[in-house]
């Protein structure tokens, strides 16, 4: 409870200092929101000529991309304290030690050390693409579906956040190996924007059993769009997302705590 109050205060500081330059902030949000969005629509134009891809209409692909973009924008905004590129210098310059000297949960402090409001741009872009998708291919909404969509987005945020935390923890040991994690984060969101059907068997296995991205966006989309499962997973597969997210976050936090223990025994 105390941690939550403190997190809110740390957040309000972040927001206040970022809103100091209101104009540049607005420009930034609008430009990433609208300009990056045009990239998707140029792809959509091409896809439209072919009437879709592997049995997915352009509207359905837009649904995949939109949800993944919204979730990733949120992750990048909320978990930016765990961005390895900013965290690693924080450790080397001793700022991390300063956090350890305060009687507040360290994870809350790192989370509260950065909040990139500018990522609203990417979220806005996701919203536009999702809206386009829903306009092209209307979803038959039920109460369950409309309740589950926010859960899916939150699950993606939590799992991506877990990968952020994992990557940041690696910087306690090395700086070089972090690139591999970026493939999972920035690459992951790109990957989730396409139907799993287009990937090779090996890739699909990797994203099912090693990093189970398949349950985060693809299976939920099958449920929302009322499509049949080509891979023969249990009917409950679209609802695995929150479980995978919780497991991933649990694992990441455990690794994070282990990393701090390592840091405290080597001091580097």
């Amino acid at each position, binding site marked *: 409870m*105390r941690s939550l*109050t*403190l997190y809110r*205060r*740390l957040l309000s*500081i972040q927001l206040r*200092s970022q809103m100091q330059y209101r104009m540049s902030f607005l420009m930034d949000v609008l430009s990433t929101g609208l300009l990056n969005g045009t990239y998707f629509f140029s792809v959509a134009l091409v896809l439209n000529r072919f009437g879709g891809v592997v049995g997915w209409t352009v509207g359905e692909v837009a649904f995949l991309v939109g949800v993944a973009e919204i979730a990733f924008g949120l992750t990048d905004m909320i978990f930016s304290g765990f961005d390895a590129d900013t965290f690693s210098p924080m450790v080397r*310059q*001793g*700022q991390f*030690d*300063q956090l*350890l*000297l*305060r*009687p*507040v*949960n*360290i994870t809350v402090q790192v989370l509260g050390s950065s909040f990139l409001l500018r990522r609203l741009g990417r979220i806005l872009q996701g919203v536009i693409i999702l809206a386009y998708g829903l306009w092209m291919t209307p979803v038959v909404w039920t109460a369950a579906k409309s309740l589950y969509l926010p859960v899916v987005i939150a699950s993606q945020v939590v799992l991506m956040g877990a990968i952020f935390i994992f990557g940041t923890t690696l910087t306690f040991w090395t700086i070089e190996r972090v690139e591999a994690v970026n493939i999972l984060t920035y690459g992951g969101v790109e990957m989730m924007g396409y139907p799993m059907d287009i990937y090779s068997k090996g890739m699909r296995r990797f994203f099912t059993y090693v990093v189970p991205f398949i349950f985060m966006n693809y299976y939920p989309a099958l449920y929302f769009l009322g499509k049949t499962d080509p891979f023969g997973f249990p009917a409950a597969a679209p609802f695995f997302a929150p479980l995978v997210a919780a497991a991933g976050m649990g694992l990441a936090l455990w690794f994070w705590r282990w990393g701090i*223990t390592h840091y*405290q*025994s*080597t*001091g580097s």
Partner: protein
Amino acid sequence: MKPILRVRDLEKVFWVNKRRQGILGSALSLVAPQMEKVTAVSQVNFSLEPGEMVGYLGPNGAGKSTTIKILTGLLVPSGGEVEASGFVPWKQRQAYVAHIGAVFGQRTTLWWDLPVIDSFELLQAMYSIPAERFRRNLREFTEMLEMERFINTPVRSLSLGQRMRADLCAALLHEPPLVFLDEPTIGLDVVAKERIRQFIQKIHQERGTTIILTTHDLSDVEKLCSRVLILDQGQLLYDGSLSALSQRFDGRRLLAVTLANPAEQITLEGVEIVSRDGPRVTFSLDGHTHDPAALIQTLLARYPVTDLEVRRPELEVTIRRIYEEKLLQPAGQA
């Protein structure tokens, strides 16, 4: 009284990757790293009574910051025991740090973009300081450290001296009984240093705060600490009073006299004249073999004198001699 800090057989060993020469060597280091053991701190024993202020001295690389990091819970030692305010620092870090204050002169704990006062208010929330106590301390510290002028200024716009004062205040707002000050006067001018020293002195006297002070500036230690710990190559060389230290290692005294009659010839038995400049004569004497007081009496009885001064060698010179000439052996081995 029960010690507030007890350190027993403290040891810290680091394993560092030993780099090999050449391209082949560095490739080899990557695959099969050759680890080398470096002992940063070993066999360190001491304890502090509540209300003590000690200087923690040592040349660069002596293991000072390693010790401070262990004592503040940032680093886990390889061996030994520490009990501070009833806690084992690295085992109960989050609970423990609420009971200590720490200032690392090279860094700031304040929020760079926030006005100083906002940082203080955040710390109030983090340390759960009751509102009344927070207001009282803030008022008192603001006055003592003369912070009114910059309390609403963002930290990034402060001068080094102002920032250091704000950091000191930040470390003390929750009234910790045990405080670690690591180079709190580094990079400051004489006036700013003096202001900070006076503040530390006052906190120590009025609140009975136990303070460990590491510094390169020996005048900090001379003015503030009656007890010093000297560390070199990870081992504690000395634990005792500052005056006993300079007595033991530098008993020399310089006695400067200004004679009423500039032409007068002057001699003192067994004492060497190091310089003579008109009426001003400087003797060098060994405090162990001569009694300076008796010599001065003899001198005054024999010659009319207008001015007289006895100087001790600078502490800095003494300490440097101890490091360079290895005058001290690690405690327990001597």
